[in-house]
C-alpha cells in the first residue's frame, strides 16, 4: 500500500470505520512511513480541534419567539391547508367551481342585460311611449289601443298630424284585397243587362262581380255604382253580395295594417251618422307607400293622399274613415 492510498483512508481510520484487513494494511504502512504518521497526527489534531469548538447557545428568547411565530403561522397554514391540500384534488376542484360560477354569471348577465331594452327603445325616438313593439314580427295581428281620446293624446305626444284617409264603402262593394282574397271590382249599371254568373255567399246575399270580358253580376235595383278612379281589375274567385260590407273591409284593413308592421291605435264607430267607422293607425314610414297601394286596391279614396318625406323615420299616423257612398 502506498502513501496516497493510506492518506485517502486516514479519515475513516481515525473514526474506526475500516474493515479489519484495510486497518492492518494501514498499520503496517504507518509503522514504516514517517510522513504518513505525521499526516495522521495532524488530521487527528484537526478533528479534535473541531470537536472542541463546543455547542453554541441559542438566544435566550428562542422559545418565546418561536411561540409568536407559531401563532402567526397557524392561521395562514390552516388556510393554505384548507385551500390547497391535497393539491391534486383541491386545485382542479376549485378551478372547476370558479369556471362554473363564471359561466353562470355570464349567462345571467346575457339574459338580463339592459342592452336588449336599449335596442328596443332606440328604434322609435319620436314616440312618447316607453314601450316600442317590433310589429314587423307580428304582421297579422295589429294591436288595438283604447279609444279616440287616447289617440288624440298620442297625436299630441308625437306632435305629428295624422294623414286623413277616407275610404268610400261602395254599395254592394266587391270586397277584395290584393293577396288576401279574390279581387273584385264594382259593377256598372249596364252590366245588369249582360249575362251574369251568380253565386251566393254564406250569408245568402247575392253578390255579383264583373270584370272586363268576364261574367257580369246582377245588380239590385236602386243601387248605384260608380266605377272608382283607382281600382284594380281582378278575377274574382268568390262572389259576395253586401250593401256595405263593413266588417269585411274593416277586417281586411286590420290585416293590411298588420302586414305593414303597423298597429291600430284606436277604432271607433261612427258618431256623426254619416261615416261608418274611424280607424286610427300607425304605419312604419318605410311601409307607408306599400300600405296605401294595398288600401287603394281595397276601396276608393275620397281625396288624393299626401306623400311623406322620403327620409321620414317616424311611423306615419293615419286616420282611416270608412265613408258610406252617397
Amino acid at each position: 500500500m502506498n502513501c496516497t492510498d493510506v492518506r485517502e483512508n486516514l479519515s475513516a481510520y481515525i473514526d474506526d470505520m475500516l474493515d479489519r484487513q484495510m486497518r492492518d494494511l494501514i498499520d503496517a504502512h504507518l509503522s514504516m512511513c514517517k510522513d504518513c504518521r505525521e499526516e495522521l497526527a495532524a488530521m487527528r489534531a484537526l478533528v479534535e480541534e473541531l470537536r472542541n469548538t463546543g455547542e453554541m447557545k441559542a438566544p435566550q428568547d428562542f422559545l418565546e419567539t418561536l411561540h409568536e411565530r407559531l401563532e402567526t403561522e397557524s392561521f395562514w397554514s390552516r388556510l393554505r391547508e384548507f385551500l390547497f391540500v391535497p393539491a391534486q384534488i383541491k386545485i382542479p376542484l376549485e378551478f372547476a367551481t370558479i369556471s362554473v360560477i363564471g359561466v353562470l354569471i355570464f349567462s345571467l348577465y346575457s339574459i338580463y342585460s339592459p342592452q336588449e331594452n336599449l335596442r328596443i327603445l332606440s328604434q322609435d325616438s319620436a314616440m312618447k311611449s316607453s314601450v316600442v313593439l317590433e310589429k314587423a314580427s307580428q304582421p297579422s295581428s295589429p294591436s288595438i289601443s283604447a279609444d279616440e281620446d287616447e289617440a288624440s293624446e298620442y297625436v299630441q305626444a308625437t306632435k305629428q298630424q295624422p294623414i286623413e284617409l277616407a275610404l268610400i264603402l261602395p254599395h254592394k262593394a266587391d270586397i277584395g284585397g290584393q293577396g288576401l282574397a279574390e279581387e273584385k271590382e264594382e259593377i256598372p249599371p249596364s252590366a245588369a243587362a249582360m249575362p251574369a254568373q251568380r253565386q251566393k255567399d254564406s250569408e245568402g246575399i247575392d253578390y255579383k262581380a264583373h270584370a272586363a270580358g268576364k261574367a257580369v253580376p246582377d245588380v239590385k235595383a236602386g243601387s248605384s255604382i260608380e266605377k272608382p278612379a283607382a281600382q284594380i281589375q281582378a278575377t274574382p274567385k268568390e262572389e259576395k253580395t253586401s250593401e256595405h260590407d263593413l266588417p269585411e273591409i274593416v277586417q281586411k284593413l286590420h290585416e293590411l295594417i298588420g302586414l305593414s308592421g303597423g298597429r291600430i291605435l284606436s277604432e271607433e264607430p261612427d258618431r256623426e251618422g254619416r261615416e261608418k267607422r274611424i280607424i286610427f293607425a300607425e304605419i312604419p314610414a318605410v311601409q307607408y307607400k306599400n300600405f296605401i297601394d294595398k288600401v287603394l286596391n281595397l276601396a276608393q279614396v275620397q281625396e288624393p293622399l299626401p306623400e311623406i318625406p322620403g327620409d321620414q323615420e317616424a311611423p306615419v299616423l293615419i286616420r282611416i274613415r270608412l265613408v258610406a257612398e252617397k
Partner: protein
Amino acid sequence: MTAQQDAALVSAYQAGDNKAFDQLVIRHKDKVFTVCYWFLGDHAEACDSAQETFIKAFRSLKKFRFESSFSTWIYRIAVNTCKNRLKSSQYKKKKKTLSLNEPRTGSEVTMFEEIADDCPSPMNELENKQRRIKIYEAIDALPPEQKSVVVLRDIQGLSYEEITDITSFGMGTVKSRLARARQTLRELLRSER
C-alpha cells in the same frame, strides 16, 4: 438526554400535551442552532433557520412515526432548511457583501466568546478566539455537501449511521466526503498558521 425521553415527549405531544413540544424545543434548540450557525455563518440567519426548523417540526410532529429518533429527525429538518437557505437568492446576495478575508467582529466573535474556554491566560484566550474564527472561515469555504458531513460528524459528534439517516447519503459517500472535507480543512488551516 436520551432517545427514549424524546420519544416519550413526542408521544405526550401527540396525545395533546402542547407543553411536551416546548420541552423538546428546550432540549434540542442549542444543537439545532449550532448546526444552522456552522452552515450559514451568520447569527441572525442561524436563528431564523433554527426557528424555521422547529416550526416545520411542529407542523409534522403529529404525524411522526418513530421510524428514527427525534434527534435524527430534527437534524434532518435543520440540514435541509439550511441547504434551502443557502440556495436562496437573498442569502447569496447577502453573502456577496461579506468578505472572508475581513476579520470577524460583532456577534460571531461574541458567539465564540461564550464557548467554554479552559485556558485561563488572556493571551491564550485571544489566540483561541482567533483560531476559532479561522476554523469557522475554513468550514464556510467548504461546498455544502462536505460542510454538512463535517459539521454533523466533527462538530456535533454524530455517528456515520446517523449522518446517513440525516443526509440520505450512502455510507461510502459519507466517508469520502468527510475525508475530502477534512483534507481541505487541514490545508486551509495549515496555511493560516
